C-alpha cells in the first residue's frame, strides 16, 4: 500500500521476531530511573504494553509496506547463515499466508498486555508474567516468520516453557496437571515432528522452506514423503489440535488465566495449522495426498465430537464449565480448518486460512468475555451461573451480555461475520476436492461437517439463552458492566470480526495467490 524501503522492511520483520525477546529480558531487569512508575508492578506491566504495542505498530507497518499486488512473493526476506554445520539459516520472510497471522498475533498479544495492565493476573509477581508473555510472543511470531525447517522447530518449541509457566503459575484450579498435560503432549508431538523435518532435510539436502516448496517434493521419494508427513503431521495435529490428540486442550484452557486462554486459542493453535499449509502441502504433496482422506475423516470426527461435547456441557445440570465448552468448540472449529486443508484445493486451503484468523478473533474475544464474567461472578460453571432460569446477563450487565451474544453468534458462523466464510469455503472445498482424492468420501465428510454446523448453532444458542437471558430477580446485585479498558481491549476484535465478515476479499486477496502458488509448487 505504501512504499517502504526493502531494508527497512527487513529490519521491521527482524525486530518483530527479536524485539519481544529483548523486551522479555528487559522485563526481568529493574526498571531504569524515570520509568519506575507508581510501583514496580505497574512499571513492568506498562513495559509489557509499550513493548507489545511497539511490536504491533511494527507489524502494522509491515502490513502496510507489504506489496499487496504480489502477495505470493516472499517479502522482507533476510537470509543469513547461522549454523552451517546443520545447514540452519536465519531465513525470515512473509507472504500472504503468514502476514495475517503475524498481525493477528501481534494484535492479540498487545490486547492481552493491555488487559493485564488494568487487570493484573492473580498470582506471583507480574514481572515474570510480562517476561513470559513477551517470550511467548517472540516464539509465535518467529513461527510465522521463519522459512527454515529447523528454525521453525526452534520457534515451535520456544512457546512451550512460557506457556507452561503461564498456566502453572497464574492458572486456576487444576493448573499443575493441566500445565503438565499441555507441555508433555505438545513436546511429544513436536519431537516426533522433528524426526520428520530431519528426514525431509536430509533426503532433500536442504532445510530451506522456499527451496523445498519450489522443489514440490520432486527430490523426495513417495515412501520418504509418507513417513515424513506422518511424523510431522502428528506433531502439528497435537498442536492444532486434531481429534483424538486434543485431550490436553480442554484442561489447559480451563486452567489457564484469561490471557493465557486467549493466546492459546487465538495464536498457539494456529501454529499447527500454519505448519500444515506452509510445510506439508508444498513440501511433501504425495505423502500428504496419502493421508488427506484420513486427515479429513479425523477433522470431521473432531467437528462432531467437539459439538457433542459442547452440547453435553451446555445441558442443564451437567455442571459444564464455560471455558471448557469454548475449548471443545475450538476442537470443532479447528476441524473445519483441517478439513479445508485436507481437500488440497485452493478453495479449501483459503477457507482454512480464513477460518484460522476468524477463530483467532472470535475465540479470543469469547475467552476475554468469559474471563470478565468470571471476574464478576467468580465462576465459569454454567449451572452456577444460570441457576434455574438463566444468568440474565442482558438484565444485569447489558453490554457484556450483548457482546457475549455477538461473539457466540459470530462463532456459530452467521453470514456477515468472520466465522462464516472460512467454514463455508472449507465445505466448498470438500464438495470438490483435488483430483486424486476420492470425491464420494469428501462429499460424505462435507455432509457430516455441515451437520456439525447445525450442532454448533444449537449449543451456542443454548449458551446464549442460559447465560444472557432469564428473569432478573428483584434484589439481584447488578454486575459491573463493561469497563473502558475492556472496551479498549475488545473493540478491535469486534470490529475486525465484522470487517472480515463483510469484506472477506481483504483477507482472501492476500492468501489466495500465495495458496495457489504453494499448491502449484512454488512456481507460477
Amino acid at each position, binding site marked *: 500500500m505504501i512504499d517502504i524501503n526493502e531494508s527497512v522492511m527487513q529490519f521491521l520483520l527482524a525486530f518483530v521476531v527479536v524485539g519481544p525477546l529483548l523486551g522479555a529480558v528487559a522485563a526481568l531487569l529493574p526498571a531504569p530511573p524515570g520509568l519506575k512508575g507508581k510501583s514496580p508492578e505497574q512499571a513492568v506491566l506498562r513495559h509489557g504494553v509499550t513493548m507489545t504495542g511497539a511490536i504491533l505498530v511494527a507489524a502494522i507497518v509491515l502490513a502496510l509496506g507489504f506489496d499487496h499486488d504480489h502477495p505470493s512473493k516472499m517479502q522482507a526476506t533476510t537470509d543469513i547463515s*547461522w*549454523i*552451517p*554445520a*546443520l545447514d*540452519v539459516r536465519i531465513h525470515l520472510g512473509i507472504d500472504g499466508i503468514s502476514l495475517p497471522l503475524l498481525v493477528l498475533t501481534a494484535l492479540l498479544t498487545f490486547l492481552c498486555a493491555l488487559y493485564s495492565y488494568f487487570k493484573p493476573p492473580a498470582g*506471583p509477581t507480574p514481572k*515474570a508474567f510480562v517476561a513470559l508473555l513477551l*517470550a511467548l510472543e517472540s*516464539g509465535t511470531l518467529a513461527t510465522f516468520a521463519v522459512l527454515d525447517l*529447523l528454525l521453525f*522447530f*526452534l520457534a515451535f*518449541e*520456544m512457546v*512451550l*516453557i512460557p506457556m*507452561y*509457566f503461564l498456566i*502453572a*503459575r497464574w492458572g486456576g484450579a487444576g493448573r499443575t496437571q493441566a500445565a*503438565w498435560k499441555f*507441555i*508433555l503432549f505438545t*513436546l*511429544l508431538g513436536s*519431537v*516426533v515432528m*522433528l*524426526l520428520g523435518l*530431519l*528426514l525431509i*532435510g*536430509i533426503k532433500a539436502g536442504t532445510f530451506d522452506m522456499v527451496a523445498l516448496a519450489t522443489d514440490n517434493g520432486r527430490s523426495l521419494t513417495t515412501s520418504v514423503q509418507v*513417513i515424513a508427513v506422518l511424523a510431522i503431521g502428528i506433531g502439528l495435529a497435537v498442536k492444532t489440535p486434531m481429534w483424538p490428540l486434543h485431550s490436553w486442550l480442554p484442561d489447559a484452557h480451563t486452567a489457564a488465566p484469561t490471557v493465557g486462554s486467549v493466546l492459546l486459542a487465538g495464536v498457539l493453535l494456529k501454529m499447527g495449522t500454519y505448519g500444515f499449509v506452509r510445510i506439508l502441502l508444498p513440501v511433501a504433496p504425495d505423502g500428504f495426498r496419502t493421508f488427506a482422506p484420513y486427515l479429513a475423516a479425523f477433522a470431521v470426527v473432531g467437528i462432531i465430537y467437539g459439538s457433542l461435547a459442547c452440547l453435553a456441557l451446555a445441558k442443564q445440570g451437567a455442571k459444564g464449565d464455560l471455558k471448557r465448552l469454548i475449548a471443545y468448540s475450538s476442537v470443532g472449529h479447528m476441524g473445519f480448518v483441517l478439513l479445508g486443508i485436507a481437500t488440497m484445493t485452493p478453495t479449501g486451503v483459503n477457507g482454512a486460512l480464513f477460518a484460522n484468523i476468524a477463530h483467532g478473533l472470535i475465540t479470543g474475544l469469547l475467552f476475554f468475555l468469559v474471563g470478565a464474567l468470571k471476574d464478576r461472578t467468580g465462576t465459569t460453571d454454567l449451572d452456577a451461573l444460570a441457576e434455574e432460569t438463566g444468568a440474565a446477563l442482558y438484565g444485569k450487565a447489558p453490554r457484556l451480555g450483548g457482546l457475549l451474544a455477538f461473539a457466540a453468534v459470530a462463532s456459530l458462523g452467521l453470514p456477515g461475520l468472520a466465522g462464516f466464510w472460512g467454514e463455508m469455503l472449507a465445505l466448498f472445498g470438500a464438495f470438490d476436492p483435488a483430483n486424486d482424492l476420492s470425491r464420494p468420501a469428501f462429499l460424505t465428510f462435507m455432509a457430516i461437517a455441515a451437520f456439525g454446523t447445525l450442532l454448533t448453532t444449537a449449543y451456542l444458542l443454548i449458551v446464549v439463552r442460559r447465560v444472557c437471558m432469564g428473569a432478573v430477580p428483584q434484589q439481584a446485585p447488578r454486575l459491573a458492566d463493561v469497563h473502558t479498558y475492556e472496551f479498549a481491549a475488545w473493540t478491535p476484535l469486534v470490529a475486525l470480526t465484522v470487517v472480515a465478515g463483510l469484506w472477506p476479499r481483504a483477507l482472501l486477496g492476500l492468501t489466495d495467490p500465495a495458496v495457489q502458488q504453494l499448491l502449484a509448487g512454488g512456481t507460477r
Partner: protein
Amino acid sequence: MSALAQPVAQSVVQSIDWLAIAPPTATAVVGLVVLVADLFVPDAKKAVLGWVSVAGLAVSALLLLPLLDGDRSTFCLTGDTRVCSYTADRFTLVIQFLVLGGALLAALLSVTALKDGRRRLPEGEFWFLLLSSAAGAALLPASRDLATLIVALEVASLPAFALVGIRHGDRRSSEAALKFFLSSVTATAVSLMGISFVYASTGTLYLTQVADRIQHVDGQLHTLAQTGVVLTLVGFAFKTAAVPFHFWVPDTYVGAPLPVAAYLSVVGKAVGFSGLILVTVVAFPSYSDVWGPALAALAALTMTVGNVGALRQQATRAYSAVRLLAWSSVGQAGYLLVPIAAAGYSKDAPKAIGSTVAYALMYAAVNLGAFAVAALVGRTKTLNRIADYRGLYASNPLTALLLAFFLLCLAGLPPGIIGLFAKVTVFSAAVDAGLGWLAVVMAVNVVIALFYYLQWTALLFRAPEGAPATHRVPAPLTAAITLTGVIGIALSGAPQLVLRFAATGLF
C-alpha cells in the same frame, strides 16, 4: 637372539615429539609437584596446592594451542612411520580440551569443597589423584594402540576410585568406592581379555593395523576375533555408565564428594566414549555389523533406564539432587551413544562421531554448571535434596536463572538453544543412518526427561518456605558458575562453535 634384539633396539630409539604429548604430561607433572609440595607446605597454606593445580590444568589446556593444526603424532613405528601410538589429531585435541576443561571446572569446585571440609579431606592427595586421573583421561583420546588405551583407561580410573573413597571414616564413601572399584576392575579384566583375543587373531595392537588385519583373519580364528571385539567394548561401555553397567553410578555419585561426582559425570564419560569411538570406528570398522546393533540397543536401554531412574527420584529424599543428576547422566550417556551406534550403519562414520563430540561438549558445560549450582546450594543445605532448591530464585536470582538454563539445556528446550541443537544433531545422525526406531525411542526419552528437569526448574521459582537465607558465594564457585553460564549462553547464540564438529570428520 641378536636378530630379535636389533629391531627392538631400533624401535626404542624413537624421537619423541614433546610438544605433542605436552598436555597430558604437564598435567601429570603438576600432579607430582603438588604431591611432593604437600610435604613441605604448612597446614595453613594448603590452599596454595589447589590454586597450583588449577593453574596447572589451565596451562595444560593452553598447551593445546600450538597443536591446533592437528597433524602431529609420536611414538611411531620406526619401520612404518604412519603407525603411531600417540596421535594429536583434531579428535584428540577436542576431547583433550573437554577433559582438561572439565577437570579445571571440577577443580574450581573442589577448592571450595576442600576449604569447607577442612581436615576431613587430605588436600595433597586429593589434588594429586585428581590431576593423575585427568592426565590419564587426556592421554586416552590420543592413544592409537590397544595397550596404551588400556593403560590410559586405568590411569584415569584408579585415582578415581581413591577420590570416591577419600572421605575418611565415611561409610557411604568407602562403600561407594568399593562398588565402583569392583565393578570397574571386572570390566577392565573383561576388556583385557577381549584385547588379548584381538591380539591373538591379528598379531598387532595398533588400531589402524588391527582394522586392516581383522578383515583377513583366518576362518578358524573368526569367532575368537568376534568375541574379542565384543569383550573389548564391554570395558568402555562400563566407563560411559551404559546399562547394564550403570548400577554403580547413583551410589558412587552420592558417596563421592560433590566435585568428584561432577568430575566423573563429565570426564569419566568422556574417557568412556572416546575409548569406545577409538575401538569401534578406528579399530573395528569392518565389524560394524556387530557393534552397530549392539551399541544401538545399549543406547536405547541406557537412556530409558537412566531417565526412568531419574523420574523415580523423590524430591524430599536425602541427596536427591545429586541422585537425579547421576541418573540423568546415565540417560545422557544414552544420547551420547546414539551417534556412535549410527556410525556403524552410516557410510560417513567420522561425521556421525562428530555429533557425539558436539553433544559431549554441550553436556560437559551445562552439566558441570548444574553441579556447580548444586555445590553452592549444598553448602547451606548439606542434605542437598531437590526440595531444598525451592525458592532459590528469591534468595539468589541469578544462580536460579542459570540453573534453570542448565537444566533446560539438558532437557533440550529453548531457552537452552544449544541443548536443543545438540539433540537435533544426535537425532539427525540417527535419522541419517536409518536408525528410525532409535530416534523414536530417543524422542520418547526426551519427553520423559523433560518431566523431571522441568519439575526441578519450576521448583526454583516457587515461593520459598521461610525466609530466604543469603550467604556470600565463594569466589571459585562464582568463577565456575559464571564460566559454565557464559559458555552455555555463548554457545546458544553461536551453536556453530561446537556443532562444526558434527559437520566435518575429526580423524
